[in-house]
């Protein structure tokens, strides 16, 4: 009897939503596309050494349906191609339902489905030039080859936002499975044919404090577990049959803005426990790194920015003395200088130009470091034109 009453109440609620939706619903969407050109001198990242690479594009299309002020459905598909380094097929980037409960000064929300992982300043919106600080994100924190592990979750996200006077505090707590693509396995082990990666769950939490627009501090933590299974072919080639990984990531983020100046800095420490039961191996290297970026708004539509980005794959071996052949010593670290400029041609068009001076190769996957043409130092030049079109009704 109680069950019948409960179903009846749910039916009434859904009916009320459907009836009221046409008058208060709001639907909006954005289409985003970007075309880039890359030239590499001394490396193979995105463009082969000494060559111009134009097979470099990004695409995203999203829709956001606010059924009522409290209920929302949202989805996005993306596709990316970064030369011959990354080739991502069209993927569902997020697709979720969200309930938001207003508070006197803030709100609480629950999100279920596939959602972006709110990690650091840029992870949740990293695939649009309009919402990241440069063409390439700082690789010490937002590495391309590990992107699947950080990008999104299939599960539940709880979020709170509270504000008072000139301050605000927001937090997130989430649990879900990670959607590992073949690209991840390819980047990590050089082959998606010999190995398969499976998620074993990921927990994430963030706390973000803001004082006026001047100061923002954020701490992000995630614990990600995944397992890699070798195929019989991998065993025949001397590979492993099974491995498990547990990744703890601690990230501290700072942002300060004063008139036309902006300072951004992030620092990450990441122990990765790796177990290979077949060989009785258990190791836990700790990588760390971070960056500091300064931005200046020269004119309303024109910005200049520069960044110093540092990364070490093992904090006990910062110079790579313990790195085993065929990998070179410089695969243990990456030290990058970057200078760039962006021009907002109109509200919907943006052109950016960057120079990256990379010393070391610690942020590249191993299979790429051993390729011909990869030198200890390299220069990467990037030009990207981005366009977006938004609609709402």
């Amino acid at each position, binding site marked *: 009897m109680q069950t019948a009453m409960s179903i009846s109440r749910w039916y009434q609620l859904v009916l009320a939503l459907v009836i009221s939706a046409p008058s208060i619903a709001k639907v909006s969407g954005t289409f985003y596309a970007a075309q880039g050109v890359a030239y590499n001198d001394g490396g193979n990242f995105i463009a082969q050494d000494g060559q111009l690479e134009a097979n470099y594009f990004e695409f995203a299309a999203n829709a956001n349906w606010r059924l009522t002020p409290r209920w929302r459905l949202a989805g996005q598909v993306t596709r990316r191609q970064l030369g011959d380094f990354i080739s991502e097929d069209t993927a569902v980037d997020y697709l979720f339902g969200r309930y938001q409960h207003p508070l006197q000064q803030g709100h609480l929300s629950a999100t279920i489905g596939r959602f972006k992982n709110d990690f650091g300043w840029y992870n*949740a*919106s990293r695939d649009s030039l309009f*919402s990241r600080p440069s063409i390439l994100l700082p690789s010490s924190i937002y590495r391309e080859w590990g992107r699947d592990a950080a990008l999104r979750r299939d599960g539940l996200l709880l979020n709170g936002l509270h504000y008072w006077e000139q301050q605000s505090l927001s937090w997130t707590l989430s649990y879900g499975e990670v959607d590992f693509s073949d690209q991840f396995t390819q980047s990590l082990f050089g082959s998606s044919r010999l190995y398969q990666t499976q998620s074993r769950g990921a927990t994430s939490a963030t706390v973000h404090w803001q004082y006026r627009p001047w100061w923002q501090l954020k701490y992000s933590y995630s614990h990600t577990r995944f397992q890699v299974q070798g195929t019989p072919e991998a065993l025949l080639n001397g590979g492993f049959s099974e491995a498990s990984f547990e990744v703890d990531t601690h990230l501290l983020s700072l942002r300060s803005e004063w008139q036309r100046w902006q300072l951004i800095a992030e620092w990450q420490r990441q122990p990765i426990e790796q177990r290979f039961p077949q060989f009785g191996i258990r190791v836990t290297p700790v990588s760390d790194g971070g960056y500091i970026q300064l931005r200046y708004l020269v004119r*309303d539509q024109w910005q200049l920015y520069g960044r110093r980005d540092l990364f070490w794959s093992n904090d006990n071996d910062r110079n790579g003395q313990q790195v085993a052949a065929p990998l070179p010593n410089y695969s243990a670290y990456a030290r990058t200088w970057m200078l760039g400029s962006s021009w907002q041609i109109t509200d919907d068009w943006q052109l950016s130009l960057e120079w990256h001076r990379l010393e070391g190769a610690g942020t590249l996957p191993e299979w790429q470091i051993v390729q011909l043409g990869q030198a200890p130092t390299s220069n990467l030049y990037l030009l990207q034109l981005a366009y977006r079109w938004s609609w709402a009704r």
Partner: protein
Amino acid sequence: MIFFSFHKHLKGSIGILAGCLFCMASVNGAVQVIGHNPTQIGALSQAELRAIYSMKRQYWPNGDAITVVTLASSNPLHKQFCQQQLGLLPFQLNREWDRLVFSGTGEPPTEAVSVADMLHIVQQTKGAIGYLPDHIDAAELHLIVRF
């Protein structure tokens, strides 16, 4: 009587429209904040207004959803509003909105194509908030809130 009322309404509308056309050309004065329900925004501080325009605050105290209305980022009046009323530069607001849009956690504000359109949207939309040049007399429309 009906003609008189219509004539008075038409005269008022022309006056407002003329004011709007004028303010599109000149935005050197102050900016005033307007709302569909003035009592909801009468006591807003700069910090609260900033929370609304950066989409942190999404509800009025009575639970109604806030509809944020803006002009295009390149519009001189929008730049003036950001600097005078929010203490921000337009690109800082854009970045907040883009972050919401591309993470799926929110939608961008409603963009008005002109000051007249801004006035129309705020008049017609429950819970809406927007802004006008200070020299437009919107008091008759029961929209005005002056900082």
